[in-house]
């Protein structure tokens, strides 16, 4: 019976993770001119310059945060979609089917995104 209490709590937790990681992204990518992250932008210039992107891609911290952000965003977003769909008053059978579909879609996208993050990490390390 705790299912909704549990899902809502994770929904809130995922929202906090998204807030922190997007804040980190905004800080690194858009406040560089003010804060001067020389460790994260070693080549100087813009944060999106190729050399800076490669350097960041070689740090294990970034693929890990990509995967964490991906998981949090998928859970947060798909739980929200589930809530919207449930407000259309589907039958209990359809509710179960929708939940199963969203789990499959979420896990599929998570695996795909994780593989992409690992591939980009391996590529950056090989350069």
């Amino acid at each position: 019976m705790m299912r909704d209490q549990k899902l809502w709590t994770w929904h809130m937790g995922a929202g906090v993770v998204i807030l922190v990681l997007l804040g980190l992204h905004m800080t690194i990518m858009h406040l560089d001119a003010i804060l001067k992250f020389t460790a994260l932008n070693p080549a100087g210039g813009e944060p999106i310059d190729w050399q800076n992107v490669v350097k960041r891609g070689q740090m294990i911290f970034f693929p890990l945060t990509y995967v964490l952000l991906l998981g949090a965003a998928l859970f947060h977003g798909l739980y929200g979609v589930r809530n919207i769909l449930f407000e259309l008053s589907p039958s209990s059978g359809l509710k179960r089917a929708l939940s199963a579909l969203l789990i499959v879609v979420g896990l599929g996208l998570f695996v795909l995104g994780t593989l992409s993050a690992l591939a980009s990490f391996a590529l950056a390390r090989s350069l």
Partner: protein
Amino acid sequence: MNDSTPKEVLYRVRRFEPGQDRVPRWQDFTIPRTPGMTVLDGLWTIKQALDPSLSWRSSCRMGVCGSCGMLVNGRARLACNTQLSELGSGVVAVAPLPNFDIIRDLVPDLAPMFDSHAALMPYLIREDVGEQEKPTGEFAQSPEELEHYLQFSYCIKCGCCMAACPTVATDPVYSGPMPLGQAHRYNADGRDGGFARRREVLSGERGPWRCHFAGECSRVCPKGVDPAKAIQLMKRELVWDYIRLRKAHRPTGVAPKPTEIRRRPDIPEAPARTI
């Protein structure tokens, strides 16, 4: 009522006769308008002078019993507590509360609301049943503890919040603002120890999770209760509970009786009993 106030008022009443009408219909009545007239007064005038079959619920006529909740000019209100002068329009459109089945005319079927209310155990739950059945004193409560739930205890269960809630309109499983607000009223009461039992219902589909904070329940409440706030506070409590950070409390015990009470000398004796 000044000279420019119309002498008559048009009531447009939603009628439904079970077994006769397939769908509700509107019926118009023109009645004399009197100073200080409420929507309920007008309905009584119609019943007494024009159509004795018109049906609705009402009782106290002073906004206390919560019987006469109905949709007046598109907003859920208490008919007894709504003056015609505050409606502005020359037409008074009266319909039964939405989000409920109609029993007849302006009488909604409130049973599902009260079933949800009962399922959430809206009473003090304590282990000392003996003390509750044969009290030896009062359960202790400070003014600060009272403030935690006081405004929610003003609810009169009129159903106006349920009629205004967009989630109740679409989700038959959702308990709704009145039952949830009352569950929070007792969870927030320092004398109560029933959080764990209410959580069995609240943590599932009938809990507060479908509320997306439209806030209409609080806007229409004729008693100024804020059920939307109660629901958000309840969500917070349940989240803290899930991550084991909720501060559990033991229900307060019986307050010690004051031992040193002296009568103030300036208070005169009561007069002798006459009966």
